[in-house]
């Protein structure tokens, strides 16, 4: 209550009138600018003094209120991220608008809703670079599946690499079953993100240098299957290893990640371990693909039924670091050299050969 009285006695109204009457211009200006910054959203409404109610704030009250607010914030986590993502769309410093990378825009689109699913793409092409040349077609013959396949082809063509694969691996719950595995399902929100998990595991810095196919360009081509809508993507790459057995328990420092698993690579590979998604299983192959920064996990087609590889996800390849004489036990795992392009340079030097395969 004391605060409220203070406000009334020497608060803005009386002092303000006084200053407006007698103060020289600079002081008046200073006061005005302060008024503008002080409480821009409160308008003319009186603000209760800060200490009001604070005296009565007992410890047990704080405890249950905190838990109530925490629950509310937990429920609001998703909506808050969406709102922030919308706000991030406009540059804060007023720099003129620039066309964006369509993949980044569609990553935002995953959080969105639209009555026509094709709008999840069409609503964003106006903001993307004109080179994508995606044609808006609202006729019923143009299905959302073919819309997404064509968009993925355009993105690969404009990007000149396979960076789209990192989007294809995360979140395919809604349309994933109907799309070729290398085409992202922009309708599904991101569920698990290997890169984010690896960042937590290994730190930001370790991931910055990742570029497994350094110096190798993607030259994608497509193969349209006659009897279905399937479009296979032709890529070039090198097998790095085969997933042998889950090795999560054997290495403490890796703290078995919830959404990912660590596999030992089959003997014969130059590297030892791979962090892969839960979708990967024993026998899957780890490949370095031209134009893809991260190695990928592929499932080899069964010899009689299929000719295309299934894209399962990305992989982080690890190897034991130098042994520390002061700390006995297994050496800490570090990011393997293949992640920063050792195999790619072997290809460039003709000590390793690329193989052509199709992703289905």
């Amino acid at each position: 209550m004391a605060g409220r009285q203070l406000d009334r006695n020497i608060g803005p109204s009386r002092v303000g009138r006084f200053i407006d009457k007698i103060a020289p211009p600079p002081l008046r200006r200073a006061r005005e600018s302060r008024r503008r910054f002080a409480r821009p959203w409160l308008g003319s409404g009186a603000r209760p003094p800060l200490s009001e109610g604070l005296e009565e704030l007992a410890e047990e009250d704080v405890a249950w209120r905190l838990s109530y607010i925490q629950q509310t914030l937990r429920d609001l986590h998703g909506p808050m991220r969406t709102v922030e993502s919308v706000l991030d769309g406009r540059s804060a410093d007023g720099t003129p608008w620039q066309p964006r990378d369509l993949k980044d825009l569609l990553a935002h689109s995953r959080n969105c809703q639209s009555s026509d699913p094709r709008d999840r793409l069409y609503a964003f092409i106006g903001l993307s670079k004109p080179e994508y040349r995606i044609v808006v077609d609202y006729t019923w013959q143009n299905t959302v599946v073919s819309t997404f396949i064509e968009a993925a082809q355009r993105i690969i063509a404009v990007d000149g690499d396979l960076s789209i694969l990192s989007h294809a691996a995360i979140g395919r719950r809604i349309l994933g079953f109907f799309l070729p595995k290398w085409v992202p399902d922009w309708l599904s929100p991101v569920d698990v993100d290997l890169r984010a998990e690896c960042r937590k595991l290994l730190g930001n810095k370790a991931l910055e240098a990742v570029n497994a196919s350094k110096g190798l360009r993607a030259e994608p081509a497509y193969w349209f299957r006659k009897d279905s809508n399937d479009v296979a993507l032709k890529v070039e790459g090198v097998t790095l290893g085969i997933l042998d057995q889950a090795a999560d328990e054997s290495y403490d420092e890796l703290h078995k990640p919830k959404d990912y698993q660590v596999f030992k690579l089959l003997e014969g590979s130059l590297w030892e371990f791979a962090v892969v998604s839960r979708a990967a299983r024993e026998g899957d192959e780890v490949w370095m693909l031209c134009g893809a920064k991260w190695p990928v996990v592929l499932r080899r087609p069964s010899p009689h039924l299929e000719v295309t590889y299934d894209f399962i996800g990305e992989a982080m390849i690890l190897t034991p670091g130098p042994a520390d004489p002061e700390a006995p036990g297994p050496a800490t795992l570090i990011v393997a050299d293949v992640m920063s392009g050792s195999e790619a340079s072997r290809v460039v030097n003709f000590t390793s050969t690329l193989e052509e395969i199709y992703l289905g």
Partner: protein
Amino acid sequence: MHCEIEVLDKMPLKQVQGEYLALSYCAGSPDSTAIFSIREGKERIHFNAFANLGHAVHRVYQYWSTEHPNRDLLLWADQICINQADHAERASQVAMMHEIYRNSRMTLVCLSTPSSEPHGLTGWLKGSFFDSPLTSGIDMDIQLAGLLCRQHFSAWETHHEGDVQEYWAKNHEWISSMQALFACPWWARSWVYQEFVMASQVRFVWAEETKSLEELAPQIRFVCREIPLAVQAWSDAAAAGRLSSLLKDIKQRVVQYEVREVLQIAL
């Protein structure tokens, strides 16, 4: 409220650049519609449109007529200005949509719907201890203390009887209006992103309240980033039995802050 809507003939965008307002809203359920009556030349056309559009047009008109009492409102709204049944027109308008928003005088984003509670833009700041997070010197702990005891006082004053705990949870306007703001479907619509990003200027409208993007964005960012962190820090303090010393410290800082503020006003 009744307002006369007249559809202007097709005209090149260049000709009306910077003169019209563009409307961004969330269409909502197709089951909930309103009848629009518009004049096109001498003809009068009636058609069904989303009820949310009716609400948004009314709100925008209200805002405009307060700001510019004697001027006609020139407004672009997708459902009125695009023939939705014509695939070709829809596709061509979709392709130039970003230009429509870019060339507008201002884009008005209507976040509320006919069923929204009032005060979605200010309810979570009303009567608050919040000062501008960007310009004030109040630290987060004090702001959070303010949030925690907000309406506590009025709860005691008006409801001496009954469960204060229940009263607080039910009537804490800042929480419910914050929930309403974030849960508002506009944020998650695909189309609005382009409308928002391309707009020359943005003003948010919620029932009778309006607020510019420059005002609202820092407040939202503040809530999204700072409040969860502070609440977590306080909860950790409570778990470690350090809550009473934290509160004591904050009370001291609040008193210091108030003295400083009074001195500044007096100067």
